[in-house]
């Protein structure tokens, strides 16, 4: 690995749990849609500074959302958290606040019904955020290497190029990062139908292999209930011949490393290696689609500790994310030219014969380390901080999912 921009140059913010962050963000989180505007007004005062808005819109309680919020607010990129509550919503604000306090971070909860309504809460919130920014300036910074990183990958706005340039290049980057000790997460079991047997052979234990197979079968059942067809006729016109070929186009984002574990949203990889995230809810179909948009998937990987996300797109996307930077990899050279200001990596070079998959994979790896060292991604520069959290339901992972052997 190049010494000049090598991992030794990365200075992370050290958190009480031993994890290291690549950003030091103040989060303002609304706990019901009724508090969204007030929370957004608090954040608006800090444009250009690292103060970010997240939240949960529902008034009914949900264990998944509660756990996700705890994980997100104790993410290593987060320095302090302000919760904004209306007062009568069902979200357990005491529990989430206690979890953040236990993580050693400054935390405050403002209840609009008791804090003087809109104006009073905005004023109190802005004062608290200002003091929190000063307080987290003193968080110690220590050297950090690739082995401290958790990296996720998703694809969205896919087209025929995604599976032949962007996703294989992201896979090569994953191989390099896993080789350096990072934990890398891929997901979307619904797009892995037909890959389960190949995937199972990469598991580090036969029991984990079986768990991987079962997660894909669960996705198959879930999407069948929702009325999803797995292979659309348009896929064939686009050059895809079989369901397994279509799935492999998404699967190659995972690279060639052995699969070390199966996690669910909010489970933090215990060590370096490659992990599959099972994002499909357990039990009966209750709250609708597993993930209603790309950012819902990104947020789930951040809840599992992802310091940044590799986002592969062919048709084009402009999103970033709250909490953790998004690196956008454009698979289609025409889309890259049309949206160059929004794209971090032009994997379209592979389509045009300018660079190999290996070369683009190395560029992605180098960019991951540079962003960990403080370089801002295109979406960060532009101020993108998309966030979505909705209702879901999961059972805990089984004992075979995180084998202890290496």
């Amino acid at each position, binding site marked *: 690995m190049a010494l000049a921009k090598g991992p030794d140059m990365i200075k992370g913010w050290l958190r009480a749990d031993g994890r290291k962050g690549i950003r030091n963000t103040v989060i303002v989180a609304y706990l019901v849609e009724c508090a969204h505007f007030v929370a957004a007004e608090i954040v608006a005062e800090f444009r250009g500074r690292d103060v970010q808005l997240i939240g949960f819109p529902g008034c009914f309680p949900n264990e998944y959302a509660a756990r996700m919020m705890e994980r997100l607010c104790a993410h290593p990129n987060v320095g302090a958290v302000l919760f904004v509550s209306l007062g009568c919503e069902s979200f357990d604000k005491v529990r989430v606040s206690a979890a953040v306090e236990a993580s050693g971070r400054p935390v405050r909860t403002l209840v609009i019904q008791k804090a003087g309504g809109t104006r009073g809460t905005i004023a109190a919130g802005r004062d608290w955020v200002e003091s929190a920014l000063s307080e987290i300036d003193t968080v110690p910074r220590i050297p950090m290497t690739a082995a401290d990183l958790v990296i996720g990958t998703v694809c969205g706005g896919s087209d025929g190029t995604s599976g*032949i340039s962007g996703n294989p290049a992201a896979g090569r980057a994953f191989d390099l990062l896993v080789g350096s000790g990072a934990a890398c997460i891929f997901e979307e079991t619904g797009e892995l*139908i037909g890959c389960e047997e190949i995937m199972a052979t990469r598991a580090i234990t036969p029991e984990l292999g079986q768990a991987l197979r079962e997660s894909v079968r669960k996705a198959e059942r879930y999407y069948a209930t929702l009325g999803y067809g797995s292979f659309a006729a348009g896929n*064939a*016109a*686009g050059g895809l011949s079989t369901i*397994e070929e279509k799935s492999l186009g998404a699967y190659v984002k995972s690279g060639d490393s052995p699969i070390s574990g199966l996690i669910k949203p909010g489970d933090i990889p215990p060590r370096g290696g490659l992990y599959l995230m099972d994002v499909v809810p357990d039990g009966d179909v209750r709250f609708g689609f597993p993930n209603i948009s790309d950012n819902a998937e990104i947020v789930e990987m951040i809840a599992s500790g992802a310091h940044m996300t590799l986002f592969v797109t062919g048709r084009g996307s402009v999103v970033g994310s709250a909490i953790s930077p998004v690196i956008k990899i454009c698979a289609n050279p025409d889309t890259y030219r049309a949206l160059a200001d929004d794209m971090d990596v032009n994997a379209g070079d592979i389509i045009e014969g300018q660079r190999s998959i290996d070369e683009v994979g190395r560029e992605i790896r180098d960019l991951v380390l540079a962003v960990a060292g403080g370089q801002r991604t295109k979406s960060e520069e532009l101020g993108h901080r998309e966030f979505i959290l909705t209702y879901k339901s999961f059972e805990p992972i089984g004992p075979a999912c995180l084998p202890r052997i290496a």
Partner: protein
Amino acid sequence: MTDRATGPFLLLHPDDNTLVARANAPEGTEVETEVGPVRLTRPIPMAHKIARRPIAAGATVLKYGMSIGVATADIAAGAHVHVHNIRSAYTASVVLQDADGLGKGA
């Protein structure tokens, strides 16, 4: 082995017996295969596949170094590899008239 594109086709993995079009390749285009240069007998749209070497009926079709199905007929080097000569090892693909990628609806 390099995966850099040297013509209109990409080799995605050294083990593959298919090549993927990285642009629309017209009929008559000369393509380097493992059995020497061949001319395309039909246009190959972007992201469609041709055989990198002769593939026998019943053989596994490889892309990304992994199986994408089974050949249902002998496929010559340089020939289009698609729904008419391979099948899924899982479930049959539902296809329309435009599956060749050349129709108006494609």
